[in-house]
């Protein structure tokens, strides 16, 4: 765990500094200049933060779903602790991803919200997280809470493929890389990211994933302790 912690701190620190400090240049020379992507310019830097956070949001949801499924098999409350811990983190990350995305959208597309397919998807994920916690607070016993919220997470998870694969193809999107993305309105990740940008981007992806793992283990430990204390007091 220590290595996860240290590595995530190092990587995120690196991404924070490199992602913001490295200047843009029309004809980038060497490692310490990013290319100017037409239509994005400095706004391209958001890729280093927004995309990894959005990725971790989805990861957190999948992990939560997985432990929910595990709970249904094992009926061990510890699996529910893991599931809800991941969902709690995912909810926070989801808010962060929505905010970073919508700030960027304001400057790039002119308004905070445009109902682009991916904006719709993250909005739905936010609703799912909200519904998940609303359901949990409405159930009386720990077992019913664990059981029913696990089922809900899986049912909600069944709709995820529709958002990832189906919706973006049906509705023209504004997102870089989406259907209808004409040249200049955004970079397609694979084509236009310079090698040094990729280093920062993937460092960030790994950094945020490790950060999530670190926080998740912390939360699980805290939740276990909390349950333990609650048991001794009643």
């Amino acid at each position, binding site marked *: 765990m220590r290595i996860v912690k240290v590595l995530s701190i190092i990587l995120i620190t690196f991404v924070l500094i490199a992602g913001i400090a490295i200047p843009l240049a029309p004809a980038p020379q060497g490692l310490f200049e990013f290319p100017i992507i037409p239509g994005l310019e400095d706004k391209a830097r958001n890729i280093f933060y927004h995309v990894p956070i959005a990725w971790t949001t989805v990861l957190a949801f999948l992990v939560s779903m997985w432990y929910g499924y595990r709970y249904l098999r094992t009926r061990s409350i510890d699996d529910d602790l893991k599931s809800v811990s991941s969902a709690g983190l995912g909810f926070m990350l989801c808010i962060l991803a929505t905010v970073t995305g919508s700030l960027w959208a304001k400057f790039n597309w002119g308004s905070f919200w445009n109902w682009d397919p991916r904006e*719709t998807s993250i909005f739905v994920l936010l609703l799912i997280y909200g519904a998940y916690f609303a359901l949990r607070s409405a159930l009386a016993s720990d077992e019913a809470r664990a*059981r029913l919220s696990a089922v809900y997470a899986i*049912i909600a998870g069944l709709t995820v493929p529709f958002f990832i694969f189906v919706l973006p193809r049906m509705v023209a999107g504004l997102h870089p890389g989406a259907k209808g993305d004409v040249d200049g309105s955004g970079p397609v990740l694979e084509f236009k990211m310079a090698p040094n940008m990729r280093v920062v981007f993937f460092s960030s992806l790994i950094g945020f994933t490790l950060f999530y793992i670190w926080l998740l283990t912390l939360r699980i430990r805290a939740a276990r302790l909390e349950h333990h204390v609650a048991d001794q007091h009643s």
Partner: protein
Amino acid sequence: MSTIARTWALVVKDARSELRTRYAMNALVMFVITSVATILFAMREDQASPELLAGMYWVVVFFSSMSGLSRIFVSEEEKGTALALQLIASPKVVYVGKLLFNCGLTLLLTLAVTVLYLIVFPGFVVASFDIFAVTWLLGSLGLASAATIIAAIIARANTRGTLYPVLSFPVLIPLLMTVMRSTIRALAGESFENAFGEFQVLFSYLLVMTGGSYLLFEHVWKD
């Protein structure tokens, strides 16, 4: 063979119970009438575009179904009859029976909303009947499928009324977006092939939702 007979017996029981108490039916009818009336007030003399009407059609269907489709499980829970059902029927029978009942109810609901729309909105003209019919069928069944498993979940919670739409809405968004698109096609009089994409989505939604619910239902139903 006997499984079919048992499942059907459950549908008959629920249908007869519904005819006696009119609990879901009354809620559905009143919701449809009030929501359509509200739209009429809001629009006054304006002629709404087909796009808007197609959207509003499914808004009415969504909110009305949220008022009535949870009865099927909530009433068993409230009347304390769920235990009797747990003792005599397997979870699979209960799930399929309740799903069939809700499918019937939803088809009736969407049919009623359609008739009402045709009467009160001159702009609501179904130009491609075939697209509309398939959308009506697949949309209603998909809606009923998602609504049934969520109803089973919220029946065990203590703030059922508000929780039902909150839990259902995110799950129903892919369906709602798709039916709205194909309803627009139906109103615009497009040819049948144009809506194949939507039909595929609706059909896979129905399969995924029903299959997932079928497998998970036991965990909801059995404490």
